């Protein structure tokens, strides 16, 4: 076994800068953090300022002028004002929230039920567990494709439900939304299941046993012992899923492209269409910043609440 604390024999005792870095914790830490800081500055901070700049102009790439000359088409706060009266914005927001409010609780209850099912060991549990996790590992775009195929008028769902081929899902004004929600629930319930099961198994087993010995039925123990101890886990699962659900794009765009019309146009789909449909880039920039602003405030409030609870 070589002694790793000794310098390799044939190295000249480097007096150079890097040798001093290796010996100084603070210096080394600085260099370690540097790549991340550079990435953040380059791809996050600087673009943010650019976005601010663009958002107060009327600039679009169709304009014919390069972006740094966007000041030539200053618009001040017009983009921001327009946001609030733009029906399409509110519609997209409403639809996104609708999906969130239906899909996330559905995933939660299904995930919780599955977790309860998997809590106690049974033969084959491991295999079924892996099967149950699969949907969330499928590339979201592929999930979109899968459900696109399934929900075709001439597709298997209609056949297996005994519905006529004229019964449309993805092109029907009401059912398009349902199809998207079903796809999302299919894909992400396993995530809820994964997280909630981990939380459930984290409940001390001897306390559970003590509850049983005291005469508590499985259901009573679940309500009084397991669930209360899962509070933190439940919040984590719900927040994580809500945030991701708000961002939903792949599924919706591939299944319906936001249609029919704008019936399934979520915020992300709407922004995409603005970007590559109508090329209103400065408007999108303004919208983006507004979303950033609102979400940051919500996140800050949420964190403050959590910090307060932890004392």
């Amino acid at each position, binding site marked *: 076994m070589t002694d790793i604390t000794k310098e390799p024999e044939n190295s000249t005792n480097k007096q150079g800068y890097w040798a001093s870095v290796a010996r100084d914790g603070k210096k080394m830490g600085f260099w370690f953090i540097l790549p991340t800081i550079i990435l953040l500055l380059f791809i996050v901070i600087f673009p943010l300022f650019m976005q601010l700049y663009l958002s107060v102009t009327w600039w679009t790439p169709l304009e014919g002028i390069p972006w740094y000359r966007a000041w030539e088409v200053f618009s001040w706060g017009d983009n921001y004002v327009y946001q609030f009266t733009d029906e399409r914005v509110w519609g997209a927001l409403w639809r996104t929230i609708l999906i969130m409010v239906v899909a996330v609780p559905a995933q939660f209850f299904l995930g919780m039920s599955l977790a309860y099912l998997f809590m106690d060991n049974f033969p084959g549990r491991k295999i079924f567990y892996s099967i149950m996790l699969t949907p969330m590992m499928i590339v979201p775009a592929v999930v979109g494709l899968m459900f696109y195929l399934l929900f075709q008028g001439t597709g298997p769902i209609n056949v297996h439900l005994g519905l006529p081929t004229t019964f449309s899902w993805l092109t029907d004004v009401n059912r398009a939304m349902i199809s998207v929600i079903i796809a999302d629930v299919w894909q992400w319930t396993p995530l809820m299941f994964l997280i909630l099961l981990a939380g459930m198994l984290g409940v001390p087993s001897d*306390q559970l046993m003590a509850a049983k010995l005291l*005469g508590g*039925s499985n259901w009573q123990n679940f309500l009084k012992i397991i669930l209360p101890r899962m509070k933190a886990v439940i919040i984590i699962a719900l927040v994580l899923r809500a945030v991701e659900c708000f961002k939903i794009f792949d599924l919706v765009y591939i299944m319906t492209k936001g249609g029919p019309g704008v019936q399934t146009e979520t915020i992300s789909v709407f922004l995409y269409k603005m970007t590559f449909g109508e090329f209103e880039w400065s408007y999108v920039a303004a919208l983006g910043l507004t979303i950033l602003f609102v979400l940051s405030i919500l996140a800050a409030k949420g964190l403050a609440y959590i910090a307060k609870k932890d004392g």
Partner: protein
Amino acid sequence: MSSIQINNVTKRFGDFTAVEDLSLDIEEGEFVALLGPSGCGKTTTMNMIAGIEDISEGSILFDGQDLSSTRIQDRNIGFVFQNYAIFTHLSVYRNLSYGLEVKKINKSEVDSRVRAMADRMSITHRLEQPASSLSVNEMQKLAIGRSAIVEPRIFLLDEPLSNLDAGFRAYMRAELKVLQHEFGQTMIYVTHDQIEAMSLADKIAIIDQGKLMQYGSPLDIYNSPDNRFVANFIGSPGMNLIDGKLREEKSQLKLMVHGGAEIPLKGQVKSNFTSDGSVHSGSFGIRPQDIYFGDKRSSNDIEMKGIVDVLERVGPKRIVHLQVSETNFIAFDDQDQLKLGEKVSFFLPSEKSMAFDEVSGRRLGVI
């Protein structure tokens, strides 16, 4: 209140046999200790009684009834875990009331019973506080109270006192004994601490490596150990156990100890060794407190000569290690007279000495 019959119970975990052919009869209202070294299977046995573990072979009967197909929830067995398993997310009150709540007993009755129990266990002042804020001693009381409040048919305690500080342990020992008499329940108590077992239990079951070594009252176990293991395990410091081969020399029977020492055998212990003609080697056992110095008190007492090797003070007493060739005898220096390096004579009363078979470990000369 229930009697418990453990009939030829065996428990296997895969290839490993944790408990082997264990049989015990515990009577109603008895306080029985399951005593043994770590890993001997005592907790596994208790888990099987509670229904936490399945029984591989054999049966456990409660008042003659086999409960193995009954759910744990319906067995009405009180169990105090080693780490108490208090519901840390609930208040002390809710911990106590849990067993009653799940039976859907009405609120006022729950309240009166909870307060009565809290009073009994002297934790009334903590009722509204979170159970996690309790001290270890209070948690112990809460654990017991929580189980007792549902009036179970038997009470199982898994090393309940091992986490407590020494002073409190003595107090709780007394408390437990009082509680047991008050509730009149059958209590089974797992411990590795023999002092606890000896002071609390009506009967002790000594278990080693999954097998029952001896089952009897504390006095029986102390005075008449069935085998080498029990003799060695009980008593602090443990019995001197010296192995050797029997040799007849000029009509004198001696135990030739590996290492050079010789113990001439006389009187009771001699007849113990010769009781079974097939035995040619064995262990000689004598408790430290039975070894004496000074003048020989009886002609059947065995005289040995040794060098004082180590002197240890243990409280008011002094333990002395006497070296005879390569063998050590442990005794008490009551008169505080011995000095290190001194050559002394010491005596082994043959009536108090015991003989054990080398192979099986059982005590020789017992009918």
